[in-house]
């Protein structure tokens, strides 16, 4: 019988194999390219593009592009995506020349910064223009990097989504789980780069190498189809006995999959198994069966199988899927700070007109005394003079109370008098942030309590406001004369604005459940079965039903 060598023949179909090009943009991108260069895992043209000439100098990529050399003069984009974009547009021709004549172009970038977010969409567009397939591997910034960076990243992401054929998105937050807490940050980033490099390699092998059961780019896009989805990626390679199981275990260990737990929710999962000549059907079957445990029945499994002589006696398993951001976050543990804020939020009542007024009044009143006390002390201590800081705080804090005042309707006569009182001391020097914290919490609580006492009449409100004026005014006078920092005054305003704004931003409507009398179980979680609150006495409910 004539042996028909499958691998040979399929290789003949695409003689040289696809020409791959990997472009790393910005700091994160160039790190990944470095990693790939070092590991020599993919046969591809490696290009590093950056605005910062120093980073380029360190880069190990064979081709380096300095973005916007004239514009940027070799300095980084400084976190401004607009600059990054401009720089990329300046170097358009150079980029086009480098990426031309490739079949698949990978673009790797860390989103959120200047060069990555700004230049990546431009480069993707250029790459698309050359007629190649464009795959983008991007990372989203760590949550500690702040909201602004995240917004920049989201913006860039939107642009990239339009231009790339497939988008593999990594959540940096999850990368933290790659390593042990005690490991250095260096290692964390190394691991992250390695993971991205691995995924690049895997995607390129999956889409380019011939296989027994071939997976194409279409499969990859299906697997990554979730809107605003983050990539779940796992890769494992093992050799020796039990190699299938071992490789799968390694693949599932990837933190991006969360020990396989995240796979429970996926709709589509791409599985690629590659092995040397010795790969057996039983092994493949075993792996798939084990994998089946982690994946729900209705999941669409895109299965690929490839024989790669280079692997020798090893098996490599790649899992790729994606999950919507919301699902991913739901899976993560709840954010801790919410606990701290809760009591305040609960206490903030339904928006009633009198309530904000009361709030405005209460705090200065109770803090009038501390102000005086502190002032007294400051007589002995020489005041630290730092005018620039004063200005800074003024500029931040002054606008805050204003909307609050505007909100107030001048229905009460007294109000007009005392309303400006809370924001009065902007000219007063600020205090270090640490000093604020202990003061602020009791104020907020007190406010909440004041707000809760809805029954207290308007008269009492007015009365309070009067006391406010009498008690609050003298310290203020002293204050100016001493030209001294009175910390509580500033903080009071803070607390006021926080709570006062709450009702406005809280559109939640009251749900009329409390109408019925639940007696002893008033404060407990209601036991609702089929729309009936079972804590309400049975006879009461029956009576109601009969009446109907």
């Amino acid at each position, binding site marked *: 019988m004539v042996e028909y060598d499958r691998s040979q023949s399929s290789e003949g179909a695409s003689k040289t194999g696809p020409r791959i090009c990997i472009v790393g943009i910005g700091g994160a991108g160039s790190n990944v390219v470095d990693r790939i260069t070092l590991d020599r895992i993919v046969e591809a043209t490696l290009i590093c593009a950056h605005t910062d000439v120093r980073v380029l100098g360190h880069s190990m990529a064979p081709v380096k592009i300095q973005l916007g050399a004239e514009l940027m003069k070799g300095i980084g984009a400084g976190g401004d995506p607009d600059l990054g974009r401009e720089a990329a547009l300046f170097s358009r021709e150079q980029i086009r020349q480098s990426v031309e004549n490739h079949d698949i172009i990978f673009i790797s970038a860390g989103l959120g910064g200047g060069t990555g977010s700004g230049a990546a969409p431009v480069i993707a567009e250029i790459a698309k223009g050359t007629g190649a397939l464009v795959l983008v591997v991007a990372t989203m910034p760590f949550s500690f990097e702040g909201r602004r960076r995240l917004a920049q990243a989201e913006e860039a992401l939107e642009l990239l989504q339009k231009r790339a054929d497939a988008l593999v998105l990594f959540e940096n937050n999850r990368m933290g789980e790659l390593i042990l807490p005690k490991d250095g940050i260096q290692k964390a980033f190394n691991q992250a780069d390695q993971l991205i490099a691995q995924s690049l390699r895997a995607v390129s092998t999956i889409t380019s190498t011939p296989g027994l059961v071939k997976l194409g780019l279409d499969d990859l896009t299906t697997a990554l189809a979730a809107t605003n989805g983050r990539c779940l990626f796992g890769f494992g390679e093992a050799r020796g006995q039990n190699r299938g199981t071992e490789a799968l275990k390694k693949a599932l260990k990837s933190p991006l999959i969360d020990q396989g737990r995240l796979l*429970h929710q996926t709709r589509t999962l791409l599985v690629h198994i590659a092995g040397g000549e010795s790969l057996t059907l039983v092994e493949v079957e075993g792996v798939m069966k084990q994998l089946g*445990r982690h994946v729900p029945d209705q999941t669409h499994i895109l299965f690929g199988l490839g024989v790669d002589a280079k692997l020798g006696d090893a098996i490599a398993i790649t899992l790729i899927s994606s999950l919507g951001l919301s699902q991913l976050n739901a899976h993560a543990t709840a954010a801790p700070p919410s606990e701290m804020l809760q009591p305040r939020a609960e206490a903030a009542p339904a928006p009633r007109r009198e309530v904000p007024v009361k709030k405005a009044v209460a705090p200065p009143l109770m803090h009038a005394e501390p102000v005086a006390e502190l002032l007294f002390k400051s007589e002995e201590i020489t005041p630290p003079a730092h005018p620039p800081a004063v200005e800074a705080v003024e500029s931040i804090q002054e606008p805050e109370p204003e909307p609050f005042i505007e909100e107030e309707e001048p229905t009460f006569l007294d109000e007009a008098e005392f309303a400006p009182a809370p924001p009065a001391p902007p000219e007063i020097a600020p205090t270090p942030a640490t000093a604020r914290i202990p003061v602020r919490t009791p104020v907020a609580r007190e406010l909440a309590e004041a707000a809760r006492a809805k029954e207290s009449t308007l008269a009492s409100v007015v009365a309070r406001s009067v006391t406010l004026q009498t008690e609050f005014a003298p310290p203020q006078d002293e204050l100016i004369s001493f030209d001294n920092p009175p910390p509580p005054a500033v903080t009071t305003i803070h607390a006021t604005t926080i709570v006062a704004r709450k009702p406005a931003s809280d559109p939640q409507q009251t749900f009329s459940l409390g109408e019925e009398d639940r*007696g*002893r179980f008033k*404060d407990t979680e209601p036991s609702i079965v089929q729309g009936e609150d*079972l804590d309400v*006495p*049975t006879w009461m409910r029956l009576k109601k039903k009969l009446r109907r």
Partner: protein
Amino acid sequence: MAKSTIYAGLEIGTHKICVVVGEAKRDGAIKILGVGQAPSRGVRKGEIVDFEKVQTCVNDALVRAEDRSDVMIRNVFLGVTGAHIESLNNRGRHRLPDDQTEITEDDVEEAKEIARSVSIPQSNVFLHSVTRQYIVDGVEAVRQPIGREGRVLEADYHIIHGIRGRVQNAIRCVREIPLEVEDVVFNPVAAAQVVLTREAKMQGALMIDFGAGTCDYVLYEDGMITASGCVPLGGDHITNDVAMALQIPNGRAERLKVEEGSVLYDEVPEGEMLSIEDDTGLVLGEVERAFLNEVMNLRTKEILIQVRVRVEEHLGRLGAGIYLTGGVSLMKGVDAVAREVFGIKVTRAGSAPVSGITATFENPQYSAPIGLIRYAQILDSEKPFLSPLKRLGRRMQELLSSVTL
């Protein structure tokens, strides 16, 4: 000689907090050494709402139990309940490798793991995962699969899970006493160990622990736990209904319910009046007995119907019927109402006889805490045998920790 171990069970109930100290002999017998009880404050529907009050009450009960049993309690088995606790059955299927026909320990472990890897909400935590049975090649009710020939091994699991935060709250509350929590047990699972006999479990039985705050149930079929759960309604609701119907304070309503109340109102002659007295014996007013009973009956029936709704699909196979336990099971006529609701035999039962204070185990109020002792014993007997060296090490550790404390 049989060596005995002393366990303590703590149940933080809605009506009472109860600490039971029991001695489990190696031969399986249990002797109750002492019971400490304190009225409960700050617990609603089986869940702690006021930490400090509960801690005071637990302390009270603990001191009493220590006094009576003459045992210093450091570790307890904690019984928990609450509306958040849910259960489900799951089956794990494991196919043996091709070159192997005999089931080994590893295969059983594998099947168990598959069965246990059921997805529960992220916020939840497993309380129990009980093996119900093994199935070898489709043959059900295999108790011991190791060593059998087979191709496919399946493990049936009953999994009880609850919201992590709430379970942890209970544990934290007890830890601050300070007491060490050895294990957390879902109350009815513990109670069933002493209320249901092995025979009843085999025939199929539904145990309802009708407590003050919650109505917990466990259903056994063919000796296997099949369903369990908690209806967050209980005796408190009955009292509350009475209080609101008669417009009397809760405390008085509770007394009226316990002393005079019944859930049977058909036979009560019309016009029979009951006088309501206050603490000094002064007559406050009169109510019609039939009215009181009707209010109680409506609520009791409703609660039992809620239980019925949850176990409906298994009701056909209960040979031993229903076992009512818990404080409310002492209420007059509750068994008749239960029979009306479920349509099968109803038995009111306390704990099965154990030696010790007789009044304790006969009272259905103590089923759950005594069950905790039994549960602890069962748990320990399932634990792997520790080598003498290890046991010595553990003893030393205990000793050291006691010194540092």
